[in-house]
């Protein structure tokens, strides 16, 4: 792919990193613009990884924490703690790419965890209870999508309303109490077995990983995936191209709802109870993860990989600051700053490249 001629025009390979930051202004040849496109893609792909590595190395600096922090056992825990936010992130990523937002995630997680636990208490099998929980998530997503698509209302407002509706329903359904779920296979999805080793990972981690791979493929290689990007980039243009935008929005929110329902199921498994007050503010964690992962809240960009890395970064931050013994308020401040830096860097990167390369 790289010809000799290119090598002379561009700095040698080891300087390429620098060159990316300052691409030659008047390079209009086909090859170099293709090159800069791939390099931009590379940066976008690597960006979130850099943040994650930075955070990991930050905690590895402390000699008193490193021997415990950089262990398989610890990463097993971090991965397990990422699952709920991670699965939620899968749904949120497609919503944000399509230019929308969903504030009802935390409430839906609470509601579906209560639904699952209640079904188990009523004697349903694990499969039925699980499907019910995911079904309720999907139904709420469908309602959101219908209102947003059908009535053309702002996603922010619709899902803000749904946040209250779902939370209230969860409390109503559970009689304002936590619902203890009886012994069932559902309780073991998130169980940490053999806490001193990396493997075996809890089933939930594998499920999240498999779904992430599946969603990546859907986003890249299916018509539905490309529609999502089209709608997020320019809704009017997408409509002119013949995409049934409002119909697609309904599907997007429903698919996302399935993921939120699944996250609720994971929450149920983790607490071994349905808790109507759990996951308050989870939506903000999920949105932050997507944004750290390089998606833009104005729609049109974002990757599943980035969002998952974003979710992982936040879990590592939390895990590390616990182990460093940092007080809780420091942790909150640091996570806040990391979000701002991540978004700021992203903005700079895109703005810089776009400004110079048109």
């Amino acid at each position, binding site marked *: 792919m790289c010809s000799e001629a290119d090598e002379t025009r561009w700095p040698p390979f080891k300087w390429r990193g620098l060159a990316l930051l300052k691409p030659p202004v008047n390079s209009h040849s086909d090859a170099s613009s293709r090159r800069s496109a791939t390099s931009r893609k590379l940066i976008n792909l690597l960006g979130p990884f850099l943040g994650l590595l930075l955070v990991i190395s930050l905690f590895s600096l402390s000699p008193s924490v490193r021997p415990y922090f950089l262990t398989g056992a*610890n990463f097993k825990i971090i991965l397990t703690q990422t699952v709920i936010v991670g699965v939620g992130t899968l749904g949120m990523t497609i919503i944000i790419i399509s230019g929308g937002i969903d504030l009802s995630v935390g409430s839906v997680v609470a509601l579906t965890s209560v639904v699952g636990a209640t079904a188990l208490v009523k004697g349903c099998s694990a499969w039925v209870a699980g499907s019910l929980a995911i079904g309720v998530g999907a139904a709420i997503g469908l309602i959101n999508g219908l209102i947003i698509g059908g009535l053309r209302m702002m996603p922010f407002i619709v899902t803000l309303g749904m946040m209250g509706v779902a939370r209230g329903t969860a409390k109503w359904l559970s009689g*304002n*109490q936590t619902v203890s779920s009886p012994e069932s296979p559902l309780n073991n999805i998130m169980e940490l077995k053999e*806490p001193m080793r990396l493997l075996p990972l809890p089933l939930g981690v594998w499920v999240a990983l498999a779904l992430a791979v599946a969603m990546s493929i859907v986003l890249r290689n299916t018509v539905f995936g490309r529609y999502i990007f089209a709608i997020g980039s320019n809704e009017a243009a997408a409509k002119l191209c013949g995409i049934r935008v409002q119909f697609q929005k309904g599907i997007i929110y429903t698919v996302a709802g399935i993921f939120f329902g699944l996250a609720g199921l994971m929450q149920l498994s983790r607490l*071994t109870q349905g*808790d109507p007050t*759990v*996951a308050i503010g989870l939506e903000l964690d999920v949105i932050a993860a997507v944004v750290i992962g390089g998606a833009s809240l104005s729609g049109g960009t974002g990757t599943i990989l980035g969002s998952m890395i974003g979710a992982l970064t936040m879990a590592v931050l939390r*895990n590390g600051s616990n182990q460093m013994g940092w007080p809780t308020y420091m942790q909150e401040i640091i996570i806040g700053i990391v979000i701002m830096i991540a978004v700021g860097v992203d903005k700079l990167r895109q703005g810089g490249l776009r400004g110079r390369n048109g």
Partner: protein
Amino acid sequence: MPAFLLRIVLTSLFLVVFCDGHSTEQSFTIAVIPKGTTHEFWKSINAGAVKAQQELTAGGTKIDLIWKGPLREDDRDQQIQVVENFMTRRVSAIVLAPLDSKALVRPVHTAVQAKVPVVIMDSDLKSDEYVSFVATDNYKGGQLAGEDMGKLLGGKGNVILLRYQVGSASTEAREAGFLDALKAKYPDIKVISSDQHAGATRELAYQASQNVLNRYGREANGVFCPCEPPTIAMTKALRDLGLAGGKVKMIGFDAGSQSVTDMKNGDVQALVVQNPLLMGYLGVITAVKYLKGEKVEKRIDTGVVLVTPENMNQPEIKELLYPPLDKYLK
């Protein structure tokens, strides 16, 4: 410059060797995980833990104390994460006040599997894998409140119970003790409201108090609240309505400084007071004892006292009401 660097390296090496040579005594890292960090109750627990650390260190056992509450208070999932993170941090032992008697069972199980012993304090856990349970006899505390309420009301009248939060074992035991004591000894006292929960923060508790009083305030003769936030909030709500000062007898739990002031002013008739300082202290001491291989009791009672305006100036009560926090927390 290299010489300078060399000197630093040598000095630090020397220090390492020096320290190693003298650390023949034992050293433990103890993580103390409260339910939250903002209430005064938890500050007293923190002070008690520091007191234990100071005493043990003076006695030749070096203790590293990590004090860490869940990121969001009353979020069970967050507390589970804290427990898990300390488990992989390989602390010597965990002293935990579980936010929920069931949700924390599995993390504790996992920690014990990873050979990190766990001492439970303040609130019970539905498990038998912990080393010891260091807490107030909460049921007894509730009974004390119930008996005093009966006396204050002369055996008849209407009372309100404003509960704390769903799933919190310690306050549920107090509520049960209160109701049982009334039922057993003062059958003529009617409980007109006992199904409202205050919630975790003072603001939520204040709203709940206002709502309950709006409905039942005119008929009520007495109110019991099972911990610090609802006690303070309910007293405030009673004051707003002009019902404080003894018109409605107010019995609270825990010695928050606001509650103590309210009692001095006559707005609170009695407070059931625990000894959080002792709880934090014994939590850490028990964990260290266990680590050293000594035998520990499975249940350690840290005591509970009924404080009234009459006895609040006795020295031993005074120490409970004004725990010497400054001595330990800087």
